[in-house]
């Protein structure tokens, strides 16, 4: 293995690490240079992500992995191994796309608002890509800490007392969660004697009855740490406040951070506690199902109760997390396939929405929000003067923002005709036909509840977003149009364009997701391949 492409798996980690470190050596006043480095590295990351996904797309169920990479050239169960399969390749690509759009948005104004923005941004990418690519539990902890350390800095970017207060809570909660993560990892190592995820999957069914309680306690500790990151009710109380307080591009990037928790839950629960786990099979699935449904309900109520748009977006993140967790909790490959499609669409749409929030705030005149709230509270909408109703000229920027907002709202509320609807339809269809469309079979009770909740959460999002739209675009009669620069609206258009692309190409993308879900639910072939991963350089022979 001497080809550069064989090192493809580690490049998404090394490249941002090198770029972030390099940028630390330059003064913050050299912003243009740093921005050029940052954007070009992010573009290269997108290319790497596309290469990984294309490699993984050649994969058939139970067949070949995209790539494995034993770091430090240690044979697999002993050293750390990086694994790129369909899921991790897709997540790396999604991360780099969000990174590009958030970064472009930040270049307009936000990157000047505090020190070392560009370095922290690249370190966040190191942590995210590492967490998606690693095949080792303790290494996952290290990458979690890297991404959290960078996110602490980014959450405080721009400072101000609101951000510092929210940041304080965010850091305290996540430090406590890191302790839980360590306890869980230590317990699992103490019982199974391994930290490698594939090796763990082999050993879990072999654990004796006396040690099983300890193993499941360890898994529960780990799960709590992941679910806290994913924002499951009642662990997600910190999320809306933190995300609402963060600056717009940072919040747009954070849209994927809760998905890291979902990813870790999906990966470990299916690998180590899936159908092949013997007595521990489907451990924790009821928690995911019920907790996820509670999160959807909590998030949907929060969406309707939110008094400002940023908090509304934060609660939408909770709804998205809850949907994914409860879909994973159904334990059905078809539902998981739909959920993975939903994951991509909702992450893109919510990221775009976080960017739009700031533009919407700029559109609203200072008093307009207050006017909107009081008008609703007192039903006092009759004395609006009738002037200028006919022939009102809508400024071009306002029109673009309005169209973007309405597409975004339809995506988040999962209404037809866009990809959000297709994703929810795929999930509900698979839930109501657990054995596939060909064989009729009884529908389990949780499936009815979850279907109802999914439709209710979409309705709640629609109500809240339509209200926001009315308050922003109709109530506000701003004299001068909001100043919006092209570089600020371009990332939103990019993300929404991708969502529209996913709508058009829903067929092939869904096929990719379904294959991915099948592999995740039956990982035996994958496990064998990871355990027999070839070394990067063969030891002995011609090597010194």
């Amino acid at each position: 293995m001497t080809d550069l492409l064989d090192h493809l798996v580690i490049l998404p980690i090394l490249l941002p690490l090198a770029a972030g470190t390099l940028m630390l050596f330059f003064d913050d006043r050299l912003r243009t240079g740093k921005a050029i480095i940052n954007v070009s590295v992010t573009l290269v990351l997108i290319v790497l992500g596309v290469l990984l996904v294309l490699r993984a797309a050649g994969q058939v169920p139970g067949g070949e992995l995209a790539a494995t990479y034993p770091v430090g050239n240690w044979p697999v169960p002993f050293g750390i191994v990086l694994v790129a399969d369909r899921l991790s390749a897709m997540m790396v690509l999604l991360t780099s796309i969000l990174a590009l759009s958030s970064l472009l948005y930040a270049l307009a104004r936000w990157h000047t608002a505090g020190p070392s923005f560009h370095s922290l941004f690249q370190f966040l990418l190191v942590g995210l890509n590492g967490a998606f690519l690693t095949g080792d539990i303790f290494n996952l902890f290290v990458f979690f800490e890297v991404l959290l350390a960078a996110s602490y800095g980014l959450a405080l970017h721009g400072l101000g007392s609101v951000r510092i207060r929210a940041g304080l809570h965010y850091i305290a909660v996540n430090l406590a969660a890191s302790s839980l993560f360590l306890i869980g990892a230590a317990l699992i190592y103490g019982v199974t004697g391994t930290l490698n995820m594939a090796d763990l999957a082999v050993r879990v069914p072999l654990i004796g009855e006396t040690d099983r309680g300890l193993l499941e306690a360890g898994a529960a500790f780990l799960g709590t740490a992941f679910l806290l990151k994913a924002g499951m009710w009642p662990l997600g109380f910190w999320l809306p406040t933190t995300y609402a307080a963060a600056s717009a591009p940072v919040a747009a990037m954070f849209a994927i951070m809760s998905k890291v928790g979902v990813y870790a839950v999906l990966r470990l629960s299916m690998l180590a506690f899936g159908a092949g786990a013997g007595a521990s099979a489907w451990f924790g699935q009821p928690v995911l199902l019920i907790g996820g449904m509670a999160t959807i309900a909590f998030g949907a109520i929060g969406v309707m109760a939110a008094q400002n748009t940023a908090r509304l977006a934060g609660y939408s993140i909770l709804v998205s997390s809850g949907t994914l967790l409860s879909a994973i909790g159904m334990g059905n490959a078809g539902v998981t396939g739909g959920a993975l499609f939903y994951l991509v669409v909702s992450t893109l749409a919510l990221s775009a929405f976080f960017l739009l929030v700031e533009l919407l705030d700029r559109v609203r005149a200072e008093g307009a929000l207050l006017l909107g709230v009081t008008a609703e509270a007192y039903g006092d909408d009759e004395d609006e003067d009738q002037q200028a109703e006919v022939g009102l000229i809508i400024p071009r920027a306002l029109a673009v923002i309005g169209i973007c907002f309405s597409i975004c709202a339809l995506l988040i509320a999962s209404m037809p005709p866009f990809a959000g609807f297709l994703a929810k339809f795929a999930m509900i269809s698979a839930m109501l036909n657990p054995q596939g469309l060909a064989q009729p079979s009884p529908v389990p009770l949780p499936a009815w509840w979850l279907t109802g909740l999914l439709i209710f959460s979409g309705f709640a999002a629609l109500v809240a977003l339509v209200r926001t739209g009315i308050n922003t675009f109709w109530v506000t009669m701003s004299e001068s149009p909001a100043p919006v620069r092209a570089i600020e609206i371009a990332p939103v258009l990019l993300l929404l364009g991708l969502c529209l692309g996913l709508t058009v190409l829903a067929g092939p993308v869904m096929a990719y997701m379904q294959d991915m879900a099948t592999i995740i639910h039956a990982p035996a072939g994958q496990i064998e391949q990871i355990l027999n991963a070839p070394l990067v350089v063969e030891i002995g022979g011609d090597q010194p």
Partner: protein
Amino acid sequence: MELIVAIGIGVLCSCGTYLLMRPRTFQVIIGLSLLSYAVNLFIFGMGRLRMNAAPVIDHGTVDPAVYTDPVPQALVLTAIVIGFAMTALFLVVLLAARGVTGTDHVDGRER
């Protein structure tokens, strides 16, 4: 020895959890530190408690029974470094919050 270590971890953990719930930022940071000590000791315990056993294995054929498990020691080392860095970072935010809000309450205002 197992009992003493277990009680020690339990005391550290309960004190840490109690302090974590307190309303002052300084109490929170001490609570987090105690909690991380408890976790570090716990990771050690998961490698089984051994006296006078080296973690680094010599060359040649050796009996693994006379050595202690090196992996938890490596994990603890990593966890200590990361915990230390995070505590320092939290301390900075704590000072910033104290400076900006004028109070050391975690919510930034006295009730």
